[in-house]
């Protein structure tokens, strides 16, 4: 039945530090459907990049570890695959675009070669055919005079052009899933729009599903079909673009949206920041990670971790305010006050 291509299920990722394990991703679950764009939004340290990299298994094994959960691609668990099988998927089925185009290309290798390398790894092509593909890709991502540019080195390109090269590289083998980790963060605003348009355009042509990691809600509004909001290593709210933007349920999502400047508003109006600072993952225990900064905190929030409350449309929220057991019951009034019961 499913047109789900990638499932992340209760993923836990921990960093091994000198003082012990530090869990950066604490139970992330989402589905990615063919051809859709899922945006994962969150502030720095919320675990979005770690989630992305652990899908590709690009985290250094010496310092990181998936402690729980599963990642399933096309019905097969990526975590149970051999290293060889995972490498075979990288670049051909699942690709990645990185944040900083200035550093994500090898400075001493011609860009054409860098694209060809991946193509030749995954497809039985002659050098000439691979070069042809690289050329097509450069043309596809809108690099002018692509024939001459194949033999240029990365430093001969501007930042925006380099990001186009990185995208060309990622899409060269027609992957089913593209993970874009803050693809426009390092770029000028005008270039940002071009790159986003390019990605949307290419997605239409190739029907690639995109996981877009970003902290920029403007980018999300522009690109996403669905949105997952991450906080403290968890997805706190997940829904369609409209659900998240017009009917946010989690106080954190609401806070994010309110903190965005709006053109329609009076400019003398100060921005509304979310008070406090992101949680320290090392000291995060039971309870809602956002409790310390939440304007609606209840006693229960500090003691028990909220579960996902899912609406009929699939809009899910992990917040005690939305939990039917709290919302519906009068008896829980005391519980809300004191947080001393077992839910």
């Amino acid at each position: 039945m499913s047109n789900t291509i990638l499932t992340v299920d209760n993923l836990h990722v921990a960093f091994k530090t000198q003082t012990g394990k530090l869990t950066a991703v604490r139970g992330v679950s989402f589905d990615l459907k063919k051809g859709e764009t899922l945006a994962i939004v969150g502030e720095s340290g919320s675990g979005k990049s770690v989630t992305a990299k652990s899908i590709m298994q690009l985290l250094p094994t010496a310092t990181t570890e998936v402690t729980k959960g599963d990642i399933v691609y096309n019905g097969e668990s990526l975590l149970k695959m051999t290293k060889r099988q995972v490498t075979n998927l990288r670049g051909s089925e699942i690709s990645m675009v990185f944040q900083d185009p200035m550093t994500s290309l090898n400075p001493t290798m011609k860009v054409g070669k860098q694209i060809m390398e991946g193509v030749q790894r995954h497809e039985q092509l002659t050098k000439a055919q691979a070069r042809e593909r690289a050329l097509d890709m450069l043309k596809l991502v809108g690099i002018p005079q692509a024939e001459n540019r194949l033999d240029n080195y990365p430093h001969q390109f501007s930042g925006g052009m380099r990001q186009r090269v990185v995208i060309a590289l990622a899409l060269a083998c027609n992957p089913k899933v593209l993970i874009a980790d803050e693809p426009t963060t390092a770029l000028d605003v005008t270039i940002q729009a071009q790159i986003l348009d390019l990605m949307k355009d290419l997605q239409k042509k190739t029907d690639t599903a995109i996981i877009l990691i970003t902290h920029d809600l403007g980018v999300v509004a522009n690109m996403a079909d669905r949105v997952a909001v991450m906080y403290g290593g968890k997805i706190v709210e997940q829904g369609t673009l409209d659900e998240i933007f017009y009917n946010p349920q989690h106080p954190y999502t609401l806070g994010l949206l309110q903190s965005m400047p709006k053109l329609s508003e009076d400019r003398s109006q100060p921005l509304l920041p979310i008070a406090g600072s992101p949680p320290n993952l090392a000291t995060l225990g039971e309870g809602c990670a956002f409790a310390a900064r939440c304007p609606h905190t209840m006693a229960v929030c500090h003691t028990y971790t909220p579960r996902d409350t899912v609406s009929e449309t699939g809009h899910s929220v992990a917040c005690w305010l939305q939990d039917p057991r709290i919302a519906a019951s009068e008896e829980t009034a005391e519980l809300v006050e004191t947080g001393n019961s077992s839910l």
Partner: protein
Amino acid sequence: MKRYLLQRIGFMLITLFIIVTATFFLMQLLPGTPFTNPEKLTESQLAILNAKYGLDQPVAIQYIQYIGNLVQGDLGYSFQHEGRTVTSMISDRIGPSAFIGLQALVIGAIIGLVLGIVSALRHNSILDYGSVTLAVLGMSIPSFVFAALLQYYVGVKLEWLPVALWEGYSSTLLPSIALSVTVTATVARFIRSEMLEVIGQDYIITARAKGLKENQVIVKHVIRNALIPVVTMLGPLAVSIMTGTLVIEKIFAVPGLGEQFTLSILVLDYSVIMGITIFYSALFILVVFVVDIIYSFLDPRINYKGESA
């Protein structure tokens, strides 16, 4: 490019000129003169000798004459070896030094690269700690200690190789091995830290994300980029090791340039001291220059054409 080259050559000549001048006057400060009566010469004999080699002139005049000859490529005659030109003395002695040095360089570079690469790939493993420890030992223990150990164990006890003799290829091995320890240690440490830096770069993640096999990533992306700076280091190292090292040549009785150099300082053979210093400096300056040129071929980000990058 042409403009850059001319500029560089100009600076090289200026550097050499400064070295020559400084050496010339510093040498005059050494106590004694080349002919301080070792063989009980009479006053008049001394005067004749001094006049023959121009030592009766004021130092300033001697300097101008020396520079004049040098510009014509004439390094003069030895003061101690009657009738021998400095040029011929250097060319006679450079052979053994260069051979031992080159051999040491090849051994050291190969072992050093292997050790460094392996310890970078197995970062923080026992293997890594072991080779780092070896490298630190190799750098901090002077080569004559290894020389003595090699002589005792390989030469005296096992009798595999000659202890201190200059006869045939077998006698080049021990001095080369003793010299190579420092090279090994330097190269190993350098390539290790370069590789660790490159492995942490974003483009290595890109290479992995392309699905390249780990050995492709290591060879084509990590080692290729880590080797570039090693070239800059190897050039000057090669010069210093191939122009002869006093202690090793002395210990193994190698008739090399290093031994000659020390000898000439001891007997104040002015022209030979100057000649060898100039030879050494010129070679060094030249190699640094050549390395810079090679660098521009290895690293596409560097060009001397003055084009915008």
